[in-house]
């Protein structure tokens, strides 16, 4: 399996599961601050496994990885109650849930992006809007904002990272 194929599969089929995956992890794990890290772990394991063979059914595959990860962590923390791990079946994970059609997805994306953008701190948001909507260079943004180029680069990078998190977080308003 070529790396490019695996990466394309990951972007197409795994990344869209993030919001559901977060919900599952949050439901089963008490400490909110671990969820981002655990998601990252699940993704890393998924991509590593797919390099050997891309699974037929991505969703059950990804959630099985998440479940194993939860169990391992519980063992490591010496928490006895394995029931803490939400039952995959009771969590109702449909393996063959059809993806919404493209125009519907584009519209959903657009709304999610707007929401995510609105949650960014002002300076990051301004920098992101100037780059993405107005297509300005780093230099031009720096001139308009009256900041050093290096500072603009930082604002943009922070904006990109935060936008990524907010986009993949489907909770209303989101957690801090």
């Amino acid at each position, binding site marked *: 399996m070529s790396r490019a194929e695996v990466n394309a599969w990951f972007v197409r089929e795994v990344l869209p599961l993030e919001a559901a995956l977060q919900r599952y992890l949050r439901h089963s794990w008490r400490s909110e601050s671990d969820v981002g890290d655990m998601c990252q772990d699940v993704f*890393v394991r998924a991509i590593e496994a797919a390099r050997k063979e891309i699974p037929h059914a991505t969703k059950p595959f990804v959630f099985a990885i998440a479940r194993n990860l939860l169990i391992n962590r519980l063992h490591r923390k010496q928490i006895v109650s394995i029931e803490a791990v939400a039952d995959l079946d009771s969590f109702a994970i449909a393996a063959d849930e059809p993806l919404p059609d493209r125009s519907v997805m584009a519209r959903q994306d657009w709304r999610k992006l707007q929401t995510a953008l609105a949650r960014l701190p002002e300076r990051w948001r301004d920098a992101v809007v*100037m780059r993405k*909507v107005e297509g300005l*260079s780093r230099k031009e943004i720096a001139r308009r904002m009256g900041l050093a180029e290096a500072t603009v680069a930082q604002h943009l*990078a922070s904006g990109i990272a935060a936008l990524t998190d907010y986009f993949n977080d489907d909770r209303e308003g989101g957690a801090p």
Partner: protein
Amino acid sequence: MSADDLRRVRNAREIQAEAASWIEVRDCEDWSCARQAELEAWLAQSPAHLVAFLRAEAVWQRADRLRALSPPGPMMVPPSGSASSKPTYLRVAAALVVMCFAGAASLALLQAPKDKTYSTAIGARQTLTLSDGSKIELNTNTSLRVAYKKGSRNIWLDRGEAFFDVKHDEARPFVVTMGNRRVIDLGTKFNIRRDDARIQVALLEGKARFDSAQNAKPSQQTILTPGDVITATGQAVSLKRKAAAELAGQLGWRTGMLVFEQATLADVAREYNRYNRTQLVIADPAAARLTISGTLPANDPGAFTRLATKFFNLTVKPREGEIVITR
């Protein structure tokens, strides 16, 4: 949380910040092969790097759609009250973008462009290399005008089909106009086909903006990303995404081939007739509905008529200036 867990969380955050920095730097004009090699080395270092990068890149690419300023998709009815709840800074940004382009257009009018016209005959193809290194490939029976000036590059596709490989220059927008519709390059390769009132733009690489009206309002602008095929007929505009292979098939003409995927014989005849003076006529409605898939040379209708006789048992009768196909 244990110290181990703390370290892991911090690492995930740090990796994400690094990935975001890479994406930011890559957007810059001075992005070089050397930097690309550095990025690839960083990605190869750990799957965690790769995951963080792909994840941020996916969202950042989608963020291109923010330029649309209204939910994408044709026939959208805006939910009531959405206009007033839309963040002000976006509306301001929209106004800025529109003003810039409107400004450029009126300037072009004042300067009364001295355009150069390029045309191809039926069955011919021609490649133009322009002074800035951009290339335009003209397909059969195509006519376009080029006006290059200090601050603008304007092309009018008056007829036919052309493939554009544009050297992007922010200070000198590259704009292709077809009647009241326009494509504005944002760093791209794209194909435009114009058959009378029907215009189809397929984007292969990079990004471009499609305006479905003369002075397009933000809701009439669409940002195209790779794989997007936009078709404008009369008042209707539709956007579809196609796989890279399928798109490449549509561009078979660049090597003189016609690529058909489940095409009816009527469609095949119509395609052939763009390239040849001898016109194919499918005289039987039932025969016209038969479908074929395959790749055929554009300048050899014989390849098609042989197929028609062999696979469909159709009768081929050459006449003055046309080839008639019946059952």
